[in-house]
Every structure is written in C-alpha cells, then in structure tokens.
C-alpha cells in the first residue's frame, strides 16, 4: 500500500508540474492543445491524490503499524470514528488531505466555471497546480511523507491525542482546511485575470462565489473550533487569541472586507485595486497561517511538532509574496476607477469605512500575534501581548463595525438626502436606544457590553425594517399574502436578504461576546456532601454539591468521574458529571497526559461549566472549578444563523434570468456596463 501511495504522490507531483507549465504557456500563447493538457493534468493530479488518500486510509484501518504515520496517530483500541479523522490529525496526513482537497477544488473550478469565463481557466489550472505541487513537494522532500515506514513494527500504535478524540475535532480541521484551501481558487482567478489582462467586471463574478464559499467554510471551521475549545479544553472560554486562532481569523477578516467592497466595484466601478489586493492578501494570509501553525515559530497550544516543514512554507511565502506583488504592480494602470466618491453620506463611504475597520482589526491581530518576534528583532527582548491587548484594541473597533452594520444598509448609494436619512434611521435608532434603556434599568453597567447589545438592537432594527418594507411592498404590488411575500422577497434577492441574515447572526455573536464580560467562577475542594455557592450575574444563587466519585474502565481509557448536584435558589436542577480520563493502549499502559471532560449545562441565559481538577491523594475529596458563562449558547445560535444566511446568498439560481436581473440590484449595473 505504501508503494502504491508513494507512486501516486510522485505521479501527482509530476502532474502538478506539468499542469503549471502547460497552463501558463498555453494561456499566454493561446495554444489550445497546451490548455487542454493543463486541464487534464488537474484531473490526473486529483485522481492520483485520491489513490494516495485511499492507500493511507487502508493502512490506517489495517493497523499497519510499520507505517510511521499510522503508528504515531492511531492504536488498535481507537474507535472507528476517529480512525477516519486520523487521516488529517497529524502533519503528514493533513498535508496529503490539503493537497487532495485543493486538487478537488481545482477540478471543480475547471468543470463548473461557465463558458463566459473560459479564458481564465488555463491560468487557474496553472496556479492551482503550482500550489498543489508545492504541498506534495513538502511531503516528498521535507520530508513529511505519510507513507514512510519504520525500521521495526510496533505491537500497537501510540494512539490519538485524547483531546482530538472529540466529534468537534473530527469536523473542525476539515472545515477550516476547506476554508483555507478554497481561497486558492479566487486567488487563482485573480492571478488569471492579472496575467490575461482581462480585468473587466467578469472576473469579479467568477471570483465572488468562490470567495463566499471559502468564507462560509472558514466561518464554520472557526465556529466548530470555538465549540471544541469550549467543551474539550476545559479552560472555560471559546476564544483565547491564541496565535493559531488569530492567523485563521486573518483571512476571514480580509475576505469579509472583500465581500462588502466588491459590491462597490460592481455597482460603481470603484475600488478595483483594493479588491484585487484583498483577494491576493487573503490567500497569502492563508499560507502565512499554515506556516505559523506548522512551523512552531510562535508558541501556541496548537502547534505541530517543530520540523523543517516550516522552512518549506517560509520559502514558498518568500517566493509567492514578491511574485504576487510584482504582477499586481505591473497591472495597476489597468485598474483605474470608473467613478469617484460623491458624498461622505453614501453607501460607498460606509462600505469604505467598514473595509478600513476590517483591515484595522486584521492588522492589529497580525501585529499582536507577531509582536514577540518583532520585539525580539528590534529590541532583543521578547515582549508578548495576550488577550487584554486584543480585547482592548478590538472591542472598540468591533463596536464601530457593528454600528456600521446597522448604518450601511440605511444609506442610499451615491448620496443620501436629509429627509431620506430621517425616514431610514427613525425606527432602528429608536430600537437601539430602547434596548439601551432596558439594559440600564436592569442594572447593567459594563460599557462594552451595553454598547454591544444596544448596537445589536440598532442593527436588528435596520434588518427588521428592511424585511418589513420589502415584504409589504410585495404584498401591495403583487397582492401576495405576507408570509409568501416574505419568502419570495428573500428568494428573489438572495444576496441582499441572505446578507441581512448573516448580519443577524453577527448580532447574536456580539451579544454572546458581551455576555462573557459577566463570567464568574470559583474553585473549591469538596468532600462528598460539601457544597459551594456562586452568584450568577442575573442575581440567582447556584449551589454546587459534591455527590460522589466513581472510577471505571471504558473503551480505551480509565475514567475518574465526579458527580455534582446543582440547585438554583434552593431549587433542585439536576446533576452534572465531569471526568478525568487517562487514556491507555491495548496493553493497559498509560498514553498521553490525563485529559478533562467538562460538565456543561447549557441554557439560553447561561452555561454552568464544571471542571474536575483532581482528587486529593486518591480520596473522594475532589477539586473543582465552577464557572458561570452567560449567553454562551448564543454563540452557537448566532453561528447557525450566520451559516444559514451564507447558504442563502450562495445558493445557485434565483429565478429565471429576467427576474434575476430586475431583482438583484447589483446585477443590473453589471449587465449594463
């Protein structure tokens, strides 16, 4: 199997090189035979990589522990579910997974792109082939070969890190990878447009959906990652501003900025240079993120083992950044704007400020993440910044962005008039002030949280007003019943109303973030029967009583489980279980350090979060940490809403072309140009 796997890797590598050469040459010289060859190289590369993936999965499922990768990540007693995820749970396997998914996207780009954009395809094939070939070369030459064999055959494998044995961890990496990887496609289209000098509005249309797709994957990946950190790592939160989280957030920020500013280009022919730069840098940031994650240059809990894989990525970045920049700079004269900003009080201006804020956040996150390295270079001493820095900088910027989320849709394109503004802002502003007053009366005094929720009320006012006006207009015009009118409104204007649903998701997320300002926790060492109380931010008193400890063997672990009884204001609420797990191999030997299973009781208002710290000298006396996390549930709810809205925007179709042209306002201008 490893022989076949190695052959497949080499074949894929050669196909990648061939596709790169023929794609660029065919595209530049206009030779259709070379273009066809590049296209077929993409397909062949994808096929070869699928064979390699199958080989690795077969080795994993056959427990072929002579293969170093299989021995290092799995064991005989690992549940089948996690045998699947073993494919990408280690460095080598995840490189293979990455290359394979990229070649899948490359194939889809070749097949699905409409005839109008055919001219870009040879270049797209070439760029995707270069990137895929690079990833394969890391496996072959770093070397990080998933098919490498050991000089001996261990009886059993080392097993998978218990923290990866969680359903969230089965889906989080692939989703995040899908987001990271799929950015390559819009990037490839951007490069294709630059090289072929076809920089009209067409390439934007080709790029926008791909960007939206990777934005959606990346959002899902980030959300599942937050969920995993929350339920599995046991420190009580879902976002720690860890370097690896930060670098995954960076391309998300630049892509979100792009998805907004692209509208200005479609509608007004402005910001061409800016949009192109956003797409190019999103991709460079995704490679940068991969470099940070895999090289271990910045200490992070997520780091892979340090290896020379990092140097490969650094080298690739050092080639890709100047190459991209030079190509971009050479084409700048072709990217002149077709119109100028007419008024500060216009949709365009609010989008521009929105973009600046996104970039400001991205820059500060990048700066804070790189600061230990930068300060060491400049001053010789490492200075680190942590969550306080990121919160201090990003809370004000995030709030300003939230305000713009409510303002943007209310302002007309080009130039808004005073009566128009009064008509538009009355309801949303009232709803924001109303929410603020309720919170003040309820006794909330945290400035950031007050602002976040009040601005949330303002944005919801905007969204509701937009939906209400659109629906009643249809109701009047076509005589449709209200529910049908609302559904058709969304269906016929997917981009606009899907976007508002995404905004709603963001509001829920902001409200949930605000809740974390009121997190309370306590630690206690309790004998059975003893209890501790904790006051929730809503004024309720929770009592946690230590009930008992039990120890037993499960599938691949020894479990120490502690039971806690919870009551609120003296009223019984149920029991929570929290565990310490010592994972063992098939011979009963300990593997890895013990891990914690958190006891969580999730509610609309707050989560109870109980962590077992350990037992005192093997007695039944237990050490606990009890945390009340307000509004965490709304993070996941907001996430679902956001993904749902994203899907609506992304969904293909949207009525016959005639309807689409009149309804989707942006398309009108597109066709007119």
């Amino acid at each position: 199997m490893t022989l076949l796997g190695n052959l497949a890797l080499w074949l894929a590598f050669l196909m990648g090189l061939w596709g790169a050469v023929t794609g660029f040459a065919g595209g530049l010289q206009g030779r259709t035979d070379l273009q066809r060859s590049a296209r077929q190289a993409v397909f062949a590369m994808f096929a070869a990589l699928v064979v390699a993936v199958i080989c690795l999965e077969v080795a994993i499922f056959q427990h072929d522990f002579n293969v170093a990768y299989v021995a290092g990540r799995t064991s005989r007693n690992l549940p089948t579910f996690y045998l699947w995820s073993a494919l990408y749970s280690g460095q080598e396997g995840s490189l293979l997974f990455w290359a394979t998914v990229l070649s899948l996207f490359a194939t889809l780009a070749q097949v699905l792109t409409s005839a109008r954009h055919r001219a870009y395809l040879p270049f797209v094939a070439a760029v995707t082939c270069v990137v895929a070939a690079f990833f394969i070369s890391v496996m072959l030459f770093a070397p990080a070969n998933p098919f490498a064999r050991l000089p001996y055959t261990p009886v059993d494998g080392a097993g998978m890190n218990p923290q990866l044995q969680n359903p969230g961890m089965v889906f989080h990496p692939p989703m995040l990878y899908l987001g990271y990887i799929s950015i390559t496609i819009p990037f490839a289209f951007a490069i294709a447009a630059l090289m072929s000098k076809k920089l009209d509005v067409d390439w934007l249309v080709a790029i926008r959906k791909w960007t939206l797709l990777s934005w959606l994957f990346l959002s899902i990946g980030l959300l599942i990652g937050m969920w995993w950190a929350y339920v599995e790592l046991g420190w009580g939160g879902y976002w720690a501003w860890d370097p690896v989280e930060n670098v995954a957030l960076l391309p998300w920020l630049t892509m979100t900025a792009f998805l907004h500013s692209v509208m200005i280009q479609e509608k007004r022919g402005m910001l061409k240079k800016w949009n192109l730069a956003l797409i190019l840098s999103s991709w460079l940031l995704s490679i940068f993120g991969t470099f940070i994650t895999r090289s271990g240059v910045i200490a992070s809990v997520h780091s892979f083992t340090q290896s020379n894989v990092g140097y490969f990525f650094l080298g690739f970045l050092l080639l890709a950044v100047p190459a991209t920049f030079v190509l971009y700079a050479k084409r700048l004269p072709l990217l002149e704007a077709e119109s100028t900003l007419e008024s500060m009080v216009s949709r365009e201006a609010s989008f521009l400020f929105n973009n600046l804020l996104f970039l400001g956040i991205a820059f500060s996150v990048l700066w804070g993440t790189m600061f230990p390295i930068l300060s060491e270079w400049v001053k010789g001493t490492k200075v680190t910044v942590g969550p306080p820095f990121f919160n201090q900088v990003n809370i004000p910027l995030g709030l300003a962005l939230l305000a713009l989320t409510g303002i943007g849709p209310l302002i007309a394109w080009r130039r808004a008039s005073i009566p128009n503004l009064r008509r538009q802002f009355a309801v949303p502003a009232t709803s924001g002030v109303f929410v603020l007053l309720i919170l003040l009366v309820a006794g909330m005094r945290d400035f950031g949280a007050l602002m976040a929720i009040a601005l949330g009320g303002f944005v919801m006012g905007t969204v509701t007003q937009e939906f209400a006006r659109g629906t009643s207009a249809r109701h009047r015009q076509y005589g449709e019943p209200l529910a049908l009118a609302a559904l058709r409104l969304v269906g016929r204007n997917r981009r606009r109303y899907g976007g508002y649903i995404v905004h709603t998701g963001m509001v829920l997320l902001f409200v949930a973030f605000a809740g974390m300002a009121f997190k309370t926790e306590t630690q206690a060492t309790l004998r059975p029967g003893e209890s501790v109380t904790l006051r929730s931010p809503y004024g309720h008193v929770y009592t946690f009583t230590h009930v008992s400890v039990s120890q037993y063997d499960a599938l691949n672990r020894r479990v120490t489980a502690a039971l806690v009884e919870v009551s609120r204001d003296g009223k019984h609420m149920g029991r929570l279980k929290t565990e310490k797990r010592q994972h063992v191999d098939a011979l009963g030997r300990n593997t890895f350090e013990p891990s914690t299973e958190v006891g969580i009781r999730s509610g609309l208002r707050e989560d109870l979060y109980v962590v077992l710290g350990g037992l005192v000298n093997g007695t039944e006396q237990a050490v606990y940490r009890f945390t009340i996390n307000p509004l965490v549930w709304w993070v996941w709810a907001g996430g679902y809403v956001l993904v749902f809205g994203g899907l609506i925007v992304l969904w293909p179709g949207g009525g016959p072309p005639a309807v689409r042209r009149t309804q989707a306002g942006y398309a009108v201008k597109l066709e007119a140009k």
Partner: protein
Amino acid sequence: MNAGTKFAIGAVLIVGSVGYLMASGIKETGQYFLTPSELAQKVSADPSFYDLGMKVGARVVPGTVEKETATQTLRFHITDGTVSYPVVFRGLPPDTFTDSVEVVVEGRLQRDGVIHATDVLAKCGSRYEAVPKA
C-alpha cells in the same frame, strides 16, 4: 471640501485610532517573555524587574513538582539549563502539565527569589503527535 477629502479625514481618523489603540494596548498590556537566564540578568542589572508581571518560558525540573491538592497549590522549579527558579502557583494546572514539560509561567518574581505564578501554560512538544513506542 469635496467628498474625497472628507473621506480621507475619516480614514486618517480610523487609521489613527487603530494605531493609538495598538500602541496604548502594547504599552499597557505587553509583558516581557524571558528565559530564566535573561530574567536573572535583567534583575541583577535593574531591580525594578522584581514584582513586574512577565512570562517566563522554561522547562520543569524533573522531580521538583509538589502538588498539594487540598490547598490547590503547585510548587516546582523551572530551568533553561543554566539558571533555575522556584515557582508557586495556586490553581488548577493544565492537563498537559507534567514533570519535565515545557512551560510558560505567567507571574511576578518576588524579592524572595520565588516566581509567584498567576497562570501556568504547558506546552507539550509532541502535543498532537505521540512518539510510537517500540
């Protein structure tokens, strides 16, 4: 004043406040990240490094870990091979904390020569990847 100029003023305001927020953020929350040797050097050159919040990255000295579960107190020594410091930490150590693991200790070095930690992060070199045993 045309719209472009007005926008430029707005942009400068935003960029300026981002810059200001970042500079003040680093000034107020930045912490030195030192090895024990660097810390010893800094302290002997400038006593104001006592009782200053910082992070120290080092390795736990095997055999020095004392856990008092009842009071949730953890005592251990950290070293970078040349200089070593005793550390006291009250709270739950992370799952990955064991003898000889690499740690990042956040806290203050007191005049008694002990680092009073407010947080201990354990970094396991092979965090996601165990070494197969023969």
